[in-house]
Every structure is written in structure tokens, then in C-alpha cells.
């Protein structure tokens, strides 16, 4: 096993058998995590490749190029690994959350505004604790807003500082 090199993009190994870098998540583990956590339709990520750059930051990319590569960006940040509780990104929650049917907490207009502003809120929730997709209604359809951490009766907004807004 070799060490992770943080300043380049490396394609994830398909399965644990192909793992060559210490602690690196596999494609199978990452896809299963997303599919299971949010009950997404089978094959949602079939057309994408998955990469690690930095310590545990997983990126999702619509095409495929030779690995490794030293460039500034490749697709979209997808999931934070190499920590006890894997954490989905706001970008990925917005991009893929529409098809989720589990662990999605639906917010009212006022709750959505507070969430967007980065505020934590006491809300009722019957499902799992942990990272949820926060969603609300826009123009008559449910749309994903970002990632919230639900613990102890509270939804903590994970909206990154640069994306927080006062509407």
C-alpha cells in the first residue's frame, strides 16, 4: 500500500481488491453509500468516474481521463471520506438530490430561508440521524437545497459560507 498524494486526482479503485493507496475509499463503497443513504435509482452513477484529490475529498466526473492528473478541478466535489461519518457535499446534494427518496427533509419556505442563511433549527424528524438532504418547494416542485446534519432534534445547516444568502 502506498500513501495518498494530496495534490493530484487519482481515480478510485473499483473494489477493495484493487486498492493500492492506504485508506482510499473504493468506487463501490462510495456509490453504495450514496445509493443506500438516499435510496437513489439503481445506476444513477454508472456513467460517472470517481476520483480522490486532497485527503478524502471525492470528486464525481462525467468523463474519464488517464489517472493520475495534476489539474485544478475535475468534475464536482461529491463526498468527504477518511472520517468516521462520510459527508456529502452541497453541490452533489443539489445535483443528485432530486431523485432521492430517503433521508430527505422537506422544509417550509421560512425554514428553507433560515437553512440558506446557515442557521441551525429545531425540527421534528422521524428518520435517521446524520447527514440529510434538505429540500423545499420551488415553482411547484421539490428541489434540493443542500446538506443538513440532524442530531438531537436539531437540523444544522451545512451550507458553505460562500453559498449562504439572505433572501
Amino acid at each position, binding site marked *: 500500500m502506498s500513501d495518498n498524494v494530496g495534490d493530484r486526482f487519482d481515480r478510485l479503485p473499483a473494489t477493495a481488491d484493487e486498492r493500492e493507496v492506504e485508506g482510499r475509499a473504493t468506487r463501490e463503497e462510495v456509490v453504495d453509500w450514496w445509493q443506500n443513504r438516499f435510496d437513489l435509482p439503481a445506476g444513477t452513477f454508472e*456513467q*460517472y468516474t470517481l476520483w480522490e484529490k486532497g485527503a478524502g475529498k471525492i470528486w*464525481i*466526473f*462525467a*468523463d*474519464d*481521463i*488517464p489517472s493520475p*492528473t*495534476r*489539474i*485544478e*478541478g*475535475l*468534475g*464536482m*466535489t461529491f463526498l468527504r471520506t477518511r472520517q468516521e461519518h462520510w459527508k456529502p457535499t452541497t*453541490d452533489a446534494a*443539489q*445535483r443528485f438530490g432530486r431523485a432521492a427518496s430517503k433521508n430527505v427533509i422537506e422544509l417550509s419556505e421560512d425554514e428553507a430561508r433560515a437553512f*440558506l442563511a446557515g442557521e441551525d433549527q429545531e425540527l421534528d424528524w422521524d428518520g435517521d440521524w446524520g447527514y440529510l438532504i434538505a429540500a423545499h418547494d*420551488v*415553482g*411547484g*416542485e421539490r*428541489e434540493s*437545497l443542500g446538506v443538513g446534519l440532524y442530531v438531537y432534534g436539531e437540523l444544522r445547516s451545512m451550507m458553505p459560507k*460562500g*453559498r449562504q*444568502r*439572505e*433572501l
Partner: protein
Amino acid sequence: MKPLERYRPLIDDFEAFIDACERPLPSAVRVNTIKATPEQTMAAFDEAGIGYERADWAEGVFRLETTSPGTTWPSVHGWIHGQEEVSSLPAMVLDPQPGERVWDAAAAPGSKATQLSALMEDRGLVVANDNNLGRLSALRFNAERLGVTNMAVTNQDARNFSLKPLGEGSEDDRRVDAFDRALVDAPCSCEGTIRKNPDTFDEWSLGHVESVAGIQQGILRRAIQATKPGGRVVYSTCTFAPEENERVLDQVLDREDCRIVEQDIPLEHAPGVTEFEGEQFDPDVAKAARIYPHHNDTGGFFCATLEVGR
């Protein structure tokens, strides 16, 4: 406005041109079809009480009655991107297809690169390059909010861009040896943005025009070289100066294996100029399009399509 006087011989209705340059620009957005349809976006505008008008020449381009489209739900969700109306043109003219590999040579802050991704249905590859790392972070921010997953971001001088980081010349069958298409929306003197940036001419000098023209030529030449035989390269600027437009094309025609081709421009426009201040350009530069602010009540723009030799 003084530098614009030099274009009096080029422009049919020069007074209308100057009048338009003095008017502020309407606020415009492009619908990001990676995340929403124009219909969903209109429903969200209606719900939020935001007035809008559809551009008649391009689906998914809207003029808004609000001056702060950034603080609306459609913007938060990346359904819309604030982008000057005419600046939606070059990506449409390039017409990239899903699955292709496309280069945006001077991509920051990413309005056109993310539009390329959307036109490609977020499949295939857009290589968004810029030499300015600070501006690349703005590009990354826009691409993330707009939900783009088919973009590779590089930080190189486009004039000697290397495809090595994309595996050029390797045995790997995923490698990119050349692009299917390229967009050169070149850094320029930005005369056409006068309606948005009234201080555009404070820094204007002919010396700057001449020096930026050298960079433009270098970038366009590299784009021709890095594109497959028969592939398309769109060259655009937001400026009127023939030194940065027709003369750049004229010089690149001499030095690279390519030709200027007809293009479909769904906006009122004038042809490229074949003569300026006693200098003659290749007759084919007339196939380029000059879009003046008084034509369609937009910013000013220049756009040409080249085909790489087969």
C-alpha cells in the same frame, strides 16, 4: 466614448450606436439546463413575482426586471446564471455535442464554459482553462453552483497549452490528444462592455489594443493546433477594434491550416470589416459577425467560426 470615434467609418448608423453605448444594459440571465428547464424557471419567477421577458433569439435567455437576480431561489439552485445576453452567443455558435471533448481556452469566470457543459447535456468533457488562478476560483464557484460535472479545470497559459495532463501521447485509451471543438473568447479591450462598465475607456490606449492582439493571436493559433482536423473553433471578443478581431483572423489564416466558415447568427449583425484605416484584411473575414449595441439592445460583440484543415 472618445475611442469609439475611430469606428465612425465602419458603422452605418453611428449616432444610434453612440446612443446605445450610453444607455445602461438590461439585466439578463441564462437558464442552466443542467438543472432546470425554461418552463420550470418561469414558474419560479412567477411564484417569486419577478418580471421577465424572453429573448426572441435564444431559448432560455431572459431579461429580468430585478437588478439582483443573484438573491432569488432560481439562482440559489443554479437554475439561472447572470450573463449578458449577447455573451450567450459564442457557445451556441460553437454548437458542442454531448460526449465531445471541447476546450475553452480563456474560460474564467466560466459563463461560457458552463454554457458549453449545458449544451453538451453535461456529458463528454469541457476543459476550462485560464491563466489567472484568482479568476479560476470564480469559475469553480460558478461551475459548482450550476451543477457541472463534465468539466476539467486547468491553469495554463493558453498560448502554449499542454494536453499532457489529459494524457496526450500516452497509451491510455482515455487520453485526449486533440479537441473536437474549441472556444477562444479572448481577453480583449472590452469596448463592447461600455454599457455595463462605464469606466471601460478610462484605461483605453491603442498600445493596449495592439499588445492584447498579440496574445489573442497566440491563443487562437494554439486552439487551431489543438483541435482535430475538420473541427470548429469559435473566436469571439467583446470589443470593436479591428486590430483585435479581423486582423487577428487575417494573421492566423496566414500562419495556421484553417479557414473561416459561414455561421448562423440569430441576431441582427454586420459583417466583419475587410478594410480599416488603410489596412486590408482577407476577404473571408466578412463571414465574421459584428454585433453592435444598437442592433439588439445588447452589449457589443464579435464572433467568427473557423474550421481546422482536414
